[in-house]
């Protein structure tokens, strides 16, 4: 029996202990394992995840200040099972992948606005939000020298240094998969990148999709409008949201492109049209940033 079988057996046992139905493994991203047992899920976090920051994040989401905004765990406890960090949560209904047009953009925007407005003093100390570090990590995993990989690396090299900076509570890795429906409504999930940082990073994915021409302007404006109407300040208060969103959205474009290039490579196929759109966007970032930085040669 392999280590991963042992790990899954142990997760199924934990599921059976907390849950109210037979435990089963749910499909999810490759570095995480999710076991569902009726109304609860058991999560084995990515290999190599650090324990101390996860403990801080679990404490934060168990606080009343985040109730109704981020999913509250069944227990704050972080178990260690076969070198993996394991946590237990209520199960919710994810957004339907087969019907992306029905995705709850406004509900997501309002939850993010509420999260960003939580005073940090009402939470225990939190690590830096995870968004900026993910960009470099995703690009660093590219191991080839194809034209697409070179464009991604050049685009990253054009950007100024990325760090979470001071700011407010920030989800750190928000996308439509980070939302589940409970009887009380939609709620944010996944504490892995929760922390203090520039909340503009939580708007960076939809901003990047909109800028690339993948997300309809109508949907983007619904999302941004709902965020601002709920008091969200990450896009500034003025007319031009891009003063605040430009750098996080460019960095996120680089990350999304790196992930897309890696996926196409893993699947042994050329880039599809959507992935090529991301490469084109990276190229425009390089052109624009290079134009800003270039100096006359004479």
């Amino acid at each position, binding site marked *: 029996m392999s280590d991963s079988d042992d790990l899954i057996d142990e997760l199924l046992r934990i599921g059976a202990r907390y849950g109210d139905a037979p435990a089963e493994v749910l499909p999810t*991203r490759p570095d995480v394992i999710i076991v569902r047992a009726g109304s609860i899920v058991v999560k084995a976090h990515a290999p190599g995840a650090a324990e101390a920051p996860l403990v801080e994040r679990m404490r934060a989401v168990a606080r009343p200040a985040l109730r109704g905004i981020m999913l509250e765990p069944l227990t704050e406890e972080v178990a260690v099972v076969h070198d993996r960090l394991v946590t237990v949560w209520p199960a919710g209904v*994810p*957004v339907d*992948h087969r019907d*992306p047009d029905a*995705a709850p953009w406004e509900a997501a925007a309002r939850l993010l606005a509420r999260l960003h407005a939580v005073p940090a003093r009402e939470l225990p100390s939190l690590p830096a939000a995870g968004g900026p570090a*993910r960009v470099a990590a995703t690009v660093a995993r590219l191991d080839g020298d194809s034209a697409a990989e070179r464009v991604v690396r050049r685009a990253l090299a054009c950007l100024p240094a990325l760090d979470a900076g001071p700011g407010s509570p920030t989800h750190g*890795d928000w*996308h*439509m*998969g980070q939302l589940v429906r409970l009887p009380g409504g939609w709620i944010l999930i996944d504490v892995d990148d929760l922390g203090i940082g520039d909340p503009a990073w939580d708007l960076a994915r939809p901003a990047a*999709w*909109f*800028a*690339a*021409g*993948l997300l*309809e*302007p109508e949907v983007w*404006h619904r999302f941004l409008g709902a965020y601002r109407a709920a008091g969200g300040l990450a896009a500034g208060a003025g007319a*031009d*949201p*891009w003063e605040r*969103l*430009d750098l996080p*959205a*460019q960095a996120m474009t680089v990350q*999304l492109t790196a*992930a*897309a290039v890696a*996926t196409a490579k893993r699947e042994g196929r050329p880039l*599809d*049209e*959507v*992935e090529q*759109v991301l490469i*084109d*966007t990276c190229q*425009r*970032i390089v*052109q*624009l940033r290079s134009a800003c930085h270039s100096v006359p040669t004479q």
Partner: protein
Amino acid sequence: MQCPKCRGAMRTYERNGVHIDQCDGCRGIFLDYGELETLTRMESQWSQSHAAPPPPPPPPVHGAPAWGAPHHGGHYGHHRQRSWVGMLFST
């Protein structure tokens, strides 16, 4: 003056302030000190005044960044593409 190449006789011409010595035999041309630089300068002035002016930057699309897609609205047809849906829902 004698042509340094074929020893033929050289004739002096003046064109726009540049002295040119041309050999009647081999048609080779000799330039005085500084004349090549003068020609280069004149050439670049000519090409600057004749080159098309740089295209004006595209007007900013209202509410979209300068590095965004040039013609907003081009890609939505690929909306059901697996990679787009995957990106919408995953880290």
